[in-house]
């Protein structure tokens, strides 16, 4: 059986719907997710770079582990666990944005996303994606990441990479221009 068909079949069983939506994310909303990425991510990434972030975000959702232990912190410490998969709400947000993102012009796409974020009362860029709205979470996924940090400073800092000590006493090299 084709994987997508299998996931659709599983999705009708009670309790397995969330699992299927997570495992198959973004499913038939992949084109909307790409359009959303093109609206909320910087154009400097280029269309290839934007698609790559959308793909990575999809993988991030698929590999999300509901109930996983969270870091219990230091100072004021507590045991917390990861909430349920954000996939179902993301799919709903994407479905709501579908008409605007796939048919409207650039200003219309932008207006639709802004309106959705205001409606969802998103006040800040989330620290880690938290399912308040897929647009905010996609932005947090990218802008809170190491690659965005490099892009902001136009330097190959590589914050989240293991880079060795050599050369760290100099400023990081400038980002390579896209060919």
């Amino acid at each position, binding site marked *: 059986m084709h994987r997508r068909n299998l996931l659709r079949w599983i999705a009708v069983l009670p309790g397995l719907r969330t699992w299927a939506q997570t495992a198959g994310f973004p499913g038939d909303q992949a084109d909307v997710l790409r359009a959303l990425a093109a609206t909320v991510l910087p154009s400097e990434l280029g269309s290839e770079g934007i698609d790559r972030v959308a793909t990575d975000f999809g993988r991030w959702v698929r590999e999300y582990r509901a109930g996983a232990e969270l870091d219990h912190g230091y100072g004021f410490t507590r045991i917390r666990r990861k909430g349920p998969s954000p996939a179902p709400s993301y799919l709903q947000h994407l479905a709501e944005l579908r008409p605007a993102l796939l048919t409207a012009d650039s200003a219309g796409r932008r207006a639709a996303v802004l309106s959705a974020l205001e409606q969802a009362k998103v006040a800040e860029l989330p620290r880690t994606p938290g399912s308040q709205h897929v647009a905010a979470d996609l932005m947090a996924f990218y802008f809170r990441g190491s690659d965005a940090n490099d892009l902001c400073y136009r330097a190959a800092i590589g914050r989240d990479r293991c880079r060795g*000590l050599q050369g760290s006493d100099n400023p990081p090299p400038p980002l390579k221009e896209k060919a």
Partner: protein
Amino acid sequence: MRRHECDVCIIGGGVTAAMLALKLSEMRREASITVVEAGRPLFDLENRMHYRQRSIDYAENPWPGDFIEDQAAKGVISRTMAVGGSALHWGGTCNRFSQEDLRLHSMFGLGVDWPLDWKELERYYCEAERRLGVSGEPSPFAEDWRSEPYPMPAMAMTHNLKELKAWGEKSGIPFWSTPQAKNTRLYDGRGECIRCNTCSICPTGARYSPDFTFRRLLARKNFALHDQTLVRRLELDSGKSTIAAAQAVSQTAPDDPIEYRAPVFVLASGYCWSPHLLLLSRSERFPNGLANRSGLVGRYMCGHAFQSAFIEIDAKIYPGMNEQHGLISRKFFRSKPGQPFLRHDLRIWESASGHEPRLRGADGGILLGDDLLSDWRKRAQRGTARVRGYYDVHPDRNSMLTLDTTSRNRWGDPLPAIEHKLDAPTQARQQYTNEHFQKLFQTLAKAHNGKILSTSLSNYLDHPAGGCRMGTNPATSVCDSFGQTHDHENLFVVGSPTLPNAGCTNGTLTFVALTLRSAERIAGRVK
């Protein structure tokens, strides 16, 4: 009931237990040593890169399973309970205390003096640095003399730290690389730091953690590690004041308790669980718990307070070059004569605070894509320094760990509750301390056209210690300078609980140095 016999039974499996067990096993090769730890062993170095990535991507616990759900204490600053303890995820900072910490009473009329000499402790600092593998550079202050060089050269200062050092020193305060238990070259079988920027989960082992010591110990024939085993009480020899046994339960076989019998017992469970076990072990003969004729077990719980500032400066800082490495100054380590008592260290780290991406611009409107990046770039023109000073505060007698009968673990044992209370002289000088830090932050900010973004005062005591303080007088202390309890000649307490005061900088190196000194006394009791 199962029975396990050994020559030395060490209760607790953190950094002091690891260091003690290793040194004892070197000094007494034939002696059997058993470490009993309530938590799990997390020895899977091969998975740490994966855990690190999950922590970055999902904020998941980088040490999965490093706690016991129902073994929690109120007022504790870390939930970690695993083989290796808090030093699994520590930052590796290895600062020494100073002579003032040991002579508070004789020099300043405050607190108490420690019952040991600075010169003697200094020797054990050197040993602790060797065993942990510390990289560092010496302080420029003569009072911070050291009898041996650091085992490894200091961590290279990143471009960011060089900028921050130049800024900090404009105010006449010398700064240098903070010593850390991180390899700057191959050392002790562990590789050089590769700057992963996630020291709380070092994926390579370049930052020391006790699991490496335990794995080495496990290769020795006379060493046993009993993990997932909670010691619930200590039992006395009939008619004597010596400890006969430790009663424990295994998390994996809860219906089959274990009794540990040994000529020497050592509590190496840290500032919280060591006094807790002594209080739990109360009996008709010792209704206030063991080692507690002074009534001081669980008292004088200490730590140091801290004040922090984020200061924006004219400097090109690239956040993320090596956020876990910072600068230190010990310029304020000595209280000035004729002025109110005040001692603190001073630390600077790179920071992205104030320059992080934001969803809403200054007018409150939502920023998308290019607008967000453009706003971020404008704000990232200047750099941010994170500045912190840990300052010396002293505990009141009623700074306490007590048994909380309203909160019990699955075995029905009351869990600890810690409530810190500062002594009257510390409280009296708090305003002076606050004013000093505000002035200091302003002085620092002035250089490089700086602007203070925020300041804060700690709302907990960091690097906690105490609860079984050392001293020569059994009426005013729980143990002697070797951690040998005054009341039970075969019961020792090592590490953080023995400290009468917690200094004004990170404590782990001091906990380890004191433990290595205790090891020699303990070895003398082992046949």
